[in-house]
């Protein structure tokens, strides 16, 4: 009896690998399994498909069971310009190290390099997508991780270009460390909630670096948005945290570092807005806290439309902007406190670091330009300077309440 038990155990140990341990299926153009399609047909849930270097021209790869697909030596899935490359319909699928190329545009369907539909817990990591209409597309999915992918579109016209990462009706998604360029929007969220967008680099996209539509309670942190049509547009959403990002080099007639439209109860903190036509534009923005940001070398640091209510601008630094604040009306319900303004010329007799006279950041000239843009040609005129000084002493046309009563003498420590 005492000897029988170990023998049974040994037999069990022999049986286990065949039934429960994951197998590895190797796809190699010169091997017994030459196509990914075939590997997917052979695979059982939990298997790993190792794809060796090569060029795979296959119909849309449908991943309908829980597998891990790993590329070795950057194998290329070539969609040939007319169909979707990979479609994932199973939970917990992992795709790593793959190159996906040439998913052509379509007027009727949102074709993507990798499309995930109604799945949970998938990981799409370290892939390279080139010239795909949409890059990575999630619909009605949750708990997925999209990380360290490089998605490069060749978008010339917006109409023929989709978004690099597109989330529709999804939640609990992490988008981290991706490089996104040449698409319509770098990252697009629609009806998406409780998701995190962190440390991505979104550059040279035609419309927006990042775009929120009806997407609540999300946060984006430490991302870089440069040379996009508009850096980031957050629209029709609430509870959005925007912290530690760089919004840079959005130049043009309607170019903004950050565009807020119908946004409530959100936070914009510790960001850098540099070299944009307009750093931050807010329309229909309510109860937004804008604190600890740096606005440097923008045409306009802030444009706040009169319908924006109860916003707070605190401890920000304004350096080298042509205009600090512009608005389109004479009413204002936003509060400005303890900001540093390089245009401030007041004094600090009591030495507490806070200027003794309030600062009015809206120049009369900014208001004139808002109403009549060609007037901008008078920017360097000394008559305009005279107007500005007169208006600051005795505000008549600029919003009387738009004033920082505690302007800093020196910028706070970065």
């Amino acid at each position: 009896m005492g000897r029988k038990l170990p023998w049974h155990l040994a037999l069990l140990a022999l049986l286990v690998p065949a039934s429960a341990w994951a197998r590895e299926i190797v796809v190699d153009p010169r091997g017994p399994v030459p196509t990914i399609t075939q590997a997917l047909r052979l695979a059982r849930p939990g298997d790993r498909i190792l794809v060796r270097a090569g060029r795979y021209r296959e119909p849309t790869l449908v991943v309908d069971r829980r597998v891990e697909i790993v590329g070795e030596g950057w194998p290329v899935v070539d969609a040939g310009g007319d169909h979707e490359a990979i479609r994932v319909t199973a939970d917990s699928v992992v795709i790593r190290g793959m190159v996906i190329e040439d998913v052509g545009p379509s007027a009727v369907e949102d074709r993507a390099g990798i499309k995930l539909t109604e799945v949970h817990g998938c990981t799409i990591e370290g892939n390279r997508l080139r010239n795909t209409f949409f890059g990575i597309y999630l619909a009605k999915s949750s708990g997925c991780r999209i990380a360290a992918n490089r998605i490069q579109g060749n978008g010339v016209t917006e109409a023929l270009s989709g978004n690099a990462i597109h989330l529709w009706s999804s939640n609990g998604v992490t988008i981290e460390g991706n490089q996104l360029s040449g698409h319509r929007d770098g990252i697009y969220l629609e009806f998406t909630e409780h998701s995190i967008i962190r440390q991505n680099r979104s550059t040279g996209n035609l419309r927006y670096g990042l775009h929120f539509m009806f997407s609540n309670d999300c946060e984006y942190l430490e991302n870089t948005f440069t040379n996009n049509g508009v850096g980031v547009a957050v629209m029709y959403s609430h509870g959005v945290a925007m912290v530690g990002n760089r919004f840079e080099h959005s130049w043009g007639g309607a170019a903004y570092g950050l565009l807020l439209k119908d946004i409530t109860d959100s936070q914009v903190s510790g960001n850098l807005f540099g070299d944009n036509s307009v750093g931050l534009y807010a329309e229909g923005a309510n109860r937004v806290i804008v604190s600890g940001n740096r606005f440097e070398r923008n045409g306009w640091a802030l444009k706040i439309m009169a319908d924006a209510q109860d916003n707070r601008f605190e401890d920000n630094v304004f350096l080298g902007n042509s205009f600090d604040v512009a608005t389109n009306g004479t009413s204002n319900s936003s509060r400005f406190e303890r900001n540093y303004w390089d245009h401030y010329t007041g004094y600090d007799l009591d030495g507490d670091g806070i200027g003794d006279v309030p600062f009015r950041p809206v120049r009369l000239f900014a208001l004139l330009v808002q109403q009549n843009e060609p007037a901008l040609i008078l920017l360097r005129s000394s008559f305009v300077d005279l107007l500005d000084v007169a208006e600051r002493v005795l505000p008549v046309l600029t919003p009387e309440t738009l004033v920082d009563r505690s302007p800093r003498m020196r910028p706070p420590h970065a």
Partner: protein
Amino acid sequence: MIATARRLAPPLACLALFLACIRPAPQPIRYGQDLCDHCHMTISDPRFAGEIVTRTGRVYRFDDPACLAAFRREQLRDTTGATAWVHDFTYPDRWLDAGTASYVRSDALHTPMASGLAAFADAAQADSARAALGGTRLTWEDVATAAHEPRHPL
């Protein structure tokens, strides 16, 4: 004298007819640059874009039929002589008179403002699109009068 008048009459009549027909025409949209005059989004998808041209020739541009309808209802001060135009979903380089176009609202149409609305040249084309996409067919009156809430899929 009479002969000259007779000879000149047809071209003059044509000219008069031509002048009578001139009315505000839709202007091209610069995709990626022009902003929607209602929602402020950059217009990028011709399939859903639209315009209102006022009697005086002022042009308002929109990224979604719902924006056009909302702007016309809420913000357009003087509607007399103003014309509304929508792009044909099937042939997005064609303008349609918004008043005579047929519309489909479908969850399968991912429009910029999530209204799900697209315009078609006639009822037959709208019906064939509806057969493919699902949804309902609407007239301009339906589109113009209703508030178009975003079609939340959750």
